[in-house]
Structure formats: structure tokens, C-alpha cells
């Protein structure tokens, strides 16, 4: 049900006129806000050509934007793979028929979901850096990946669990009936179906991973935001630099979110006849950090 149909009728002539008036007022307000922002930026000299021309130069892209983006994508890509693995292991663990396994997995997942990612990042960064187990220059990168994995892996574990619990009980019963053990039925019947149903929610979680990789900025990992800050300090155009960094993140994440929405429509025919767990899961975790 779309929200649009809920609240108002198909408008008649008078309502159409009111909507038109409201629309014009709305456009004026939005334009007014934009004009105010632009005027304020202009007043402080942020719109001068010299602030923005660095983004037309090849060296800006070669030495700042692309290396930063590469580091961001590297950390995010590795964290995506490891957190899916982590999520599958602990998600299946939470569904195990062995009480201790279920218990341990539950405590681990609930604990990791409640701790801020940044705390974990700072912890691993300083702990790895001082222990000497890894080269000091690698510590920020490893800390980013490990912290993202632990947090997002436990969110994915919850997705796996809710996905499996949303399946019709007949699936498990059918598995039992052909002589599979509980574990076998979980692995070869329930989890594969749950994975397809949770695909849109999983992609939304990838957006979170990509966004949270920017936390590496705080622990000196040279990702996009860090490079853009250096660029901004060097060229004296910190505001344009941060805006470009934000725009790059928005474009990538918007693409991923659109993919998630498309997939959930596309997959709805495969998951018909069961609770819309994927949609529920997205609504369940709108916070997505």
C-alpha cells in the first residue's frame, strides 16, 4: 500500500488548485533554503573558482581522490566478504539445536551489536599497534576491517536467523522427512532459501559497511575522507573537498540502495507465500548506523 493513496482522494478542481498553490509555496521555500546556503557559502568565499578548480586537475584525482577511494573500497570489500562469513557462521550457530552453541552465539552477537563500531576500531587499532603482532602501518587497516566485520557480521547473523525463522515450517519438516539431520536440513534447505530472501537487506547492510569504513578517518586509516581532508588543508578548500567526498559516497550508496530495492521486487515472486522477512528486516534495522 503506498502512502500516497492512504491520505488523500484523487483531487478535484479545488484541491488541484490548492495543491498547485502549495506546490509553488513549497518550491519557493526549498529554493529559498538553497539560496540561503549558497549565499552563506558565497559570503565566506567558498564558491570562488579557485576553490573548485582543483577537482578539474588530473593530479587531484591521481593523488587524492582515487587512492582514497581505492583504500575505502578495499577495506569495505574485504569487510563485506568477512562479515558475510561471520554472519553465516554465527547465524547458523544461533539456530543450532545444541543449547550451548546457541547460547554462545547469542551472547557474542548481542554483545557485538550493542558496542559502537568506533570503540572496537579504536581498541583493535591501539591493541594491534602496541602488541607488535602486525606492522604498525597496517594496524589501522586491520582494525577497520576487523571492527566492521564483527559489528556487521553480527547484524548479518540476525538477518540469517530471522530469514530462517520466517520460512514455512514445512520446509524443515520436509527435510526431516527425507531423513536429513537438523543440521543438514538447516544447511542444505533452510539457509539457502533464507539467503535469497534476505538479499535486499544484505545489500542494505553493505551500504552500512561502506559508510562505516569512513570511521577509519578517526583512527588514521588513509581512506577517502582522510585524503580529502589532506587535499582540503593543502589547497585551502576543505568545504568543497568534504562535499566532493560526500557526493562520491552518496553516488555509490544510492546505487547500492537502488539495487536492493530492485532486487526485493524481483525476488518477491520467489518468496511469495511467506512472511516478507526481507522487508521486515530492512524496517527492523533502519538505523543501519
Amino acid at each position: 500500500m503506498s502512502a500516497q493513496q492512504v491520505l488523500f482522494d484523487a483531487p478535484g478542481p479545488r484541491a488541484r488548485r490548492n495543491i498547485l498553490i502549495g506546490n509553488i509555496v513549497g518550491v519557493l521555500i526549498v529554493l529559498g533554503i538553497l539560496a540561503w546556503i549558497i549565499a552563506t557559502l558565497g559570503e565566506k568565499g567558498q564558491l570562488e573558482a579557485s576553490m573548485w578548480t582543483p577537482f578539474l586537475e588530473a593530479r587531484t584525482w591521481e593523488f587524492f581522490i582515487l587512492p582514497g577511494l581505492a583504500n575505502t573500497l578495499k577495506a569495505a570489500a574485504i569487510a563485506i566478504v568477512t562479515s558475510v562469513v561471520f554472519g553465516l557462521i554465527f547465524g547458523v550457530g544461533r539456530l543450532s539445536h545444541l543449547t550451548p552453541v546457541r547460547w554462545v552465539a547469542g551472547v557474542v552477537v548481542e554483545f557485538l551489536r550493542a558496542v559502537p563500531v568506533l570503540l572496537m576500531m579504536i581498541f583493535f587499532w591501539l591493541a594491534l599497534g602496541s602488541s607488535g603482532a602486525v606492522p604498525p602501518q597496517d594496524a589501522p587497516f586491520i582494525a577497520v576491517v576487523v571492527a566492521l566485520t564483527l559489528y556487521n557480521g553480527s547484524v548479518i547473523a540476525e538477518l540469517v536467523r530471522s530469514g530462517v525463522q520466517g520460512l514455512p515450517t514445512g520446509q524443515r519438516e520436509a527435510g526431516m522427512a527425507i531423513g536429513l539431520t537438523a543440521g543438514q536440513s538447516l544447511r542444505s534447505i533452510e539457509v539457502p532459501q533464507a539467503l535469497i530472501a534476505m538479499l535486499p537487506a544484505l545489500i542494505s547492510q553493505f551500504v552500512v559497511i561502506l559508510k562505516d569504513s569512513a570511521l577509519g578517518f578517526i583512527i588514521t586509516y588513509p581512506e577517502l575522507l582522510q585524503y580529502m581532508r589532506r587535499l582540503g588543508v593543502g589547497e585551502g578548500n576543505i568545504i568543497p573537498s568534504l562535499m566532493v567526498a560526500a557526493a562520491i559516497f552518496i553516488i555509490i550508496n544510492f546505487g547500492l540502495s537502488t539495487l536492493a530495492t530492485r532486487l526485493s521486487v524481483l525476488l518477491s515472486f520467489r518468496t511469495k507465500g511467506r512472511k516478507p522477512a526481507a522487508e521486515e528486516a530492512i524496517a527492523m534495522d533502519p538505523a543501519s548506523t
Partner: protein
Amino acid sequence: MEDYLSLFETYDVLAAFWVNIQLSFWAAICALIIGTVLALFRISPIPSLQWFGAAYVNIFRNTPLTIILAFGFLGLFSVMQISLAADLNASLFRIAIVGLSVYHAAFVCEAIRSGVNTVPLGQAEAARAIGLSFLPAARLIILPQAFRGAIAPLGNVLIALIKNSTVAAAGSVATEASSLMKTMIEFRSDLVIPIFLTFALGFVILVIPIGLLTTWASRKLAVAR
């Protein structure tokens, strides 16, 4: 053990958590207000407002919070010299609240919209049938039910907000918990694990009751249909 306990004499851990709680409290109120207005925009019949609401949500939901808060410090505070209080630290604190609010407002908007979707069509039709126009129908019929349906997702936003208040470190709010944890670990790197567990436990204690409470409230207040 004595080493560990002596840390609490040197550093005021509770004060750091209190900073996070204050950040979350004010940001939660502001985000709830902005988010509700945005949700109203998105369900209104006026295309320009719908467009504005959608654009806002898509922009802020897809921007890393770290960039927003770093922008607050590096851009708004340092370059634009916008100051929200006479005192330097109070100003940074308020800018961080603004950053946290505008970011989480996008999620509040989506949570309320998901709540609106739980309201059956018949409710809006009944409201129109008794002659209510858009705003009275929204205020009297739709939003009260939508808020009740949105308690669980709103609770998730609140939990995320409390955890995300640590990111205020990117906005140079140096008194909050993650910054203090960093200072403490740098001072006593031999106690890195106990220090981390202390702070982690602090967040677990803050977050888990809210989760339980919102789950309970969403069941209790759910509109029986």
C-alpha cells in the same frame, strides 16, 4: 586489579558517558522533530515537498556520519566560523548535536513512514469520509497510529544514535567516551583489554534496556487489528 581501579581515580569515565547521553538526548529530540516533518512532507499531496523529503532522506542516509560530523568541525566551525555558543567546547558540542540530528532525522523519517504503512487504508478512508482534510486526518487519525506502529524502528534509531554519539570524536568533542577510551589506552596500554571491556559494557548497559523497553512498548501499544 589495583592498577585497573586506580584508572577510575585519574579518569572520570561516568562523566564521559554522561556527555554521550546528553548528545544522544538532544539529538534524539531534534531528529524526532525534523524526521516527523520530513515524513509529513513525504506523505503530503504536494509534489515539491515530497521531492524535498525524498532528496533529504537519500542524501543524508547515504552520507557517512563521520563526514557530516567532520564537516561540522572542519567546515562549519573552522572555515565558516559558525559558533553556536560563546564557549569553544559548548559550541563544538552543539555543532555535533546538529550533525547527529540531521543524519538521524533521515532514519526517523523512514521509521515513521514504515509506521504509516502499518495503518490500514480504511482508517484514512474513514477520516476522509467524515470530512477531514489532509492535515487534520494526518494529525488526528494517521500519525497517532503511525507512531504506535513505528515504536520498534524508532527504538532502533535511538539505539543507533546512542552508539553513533561516539562518532562526535570526528567533530572534536573530546570529552565523549570513545575519546576518553583512546586517551586511557594510550596512557595504560598494558590494560587495553579491561579498558575496552569497561567502555563496551557501558554501552551494553545503555543500549540493551532500551531495546527491551521498545520491544515491550511496541507490543503493548500496537494497535489491535
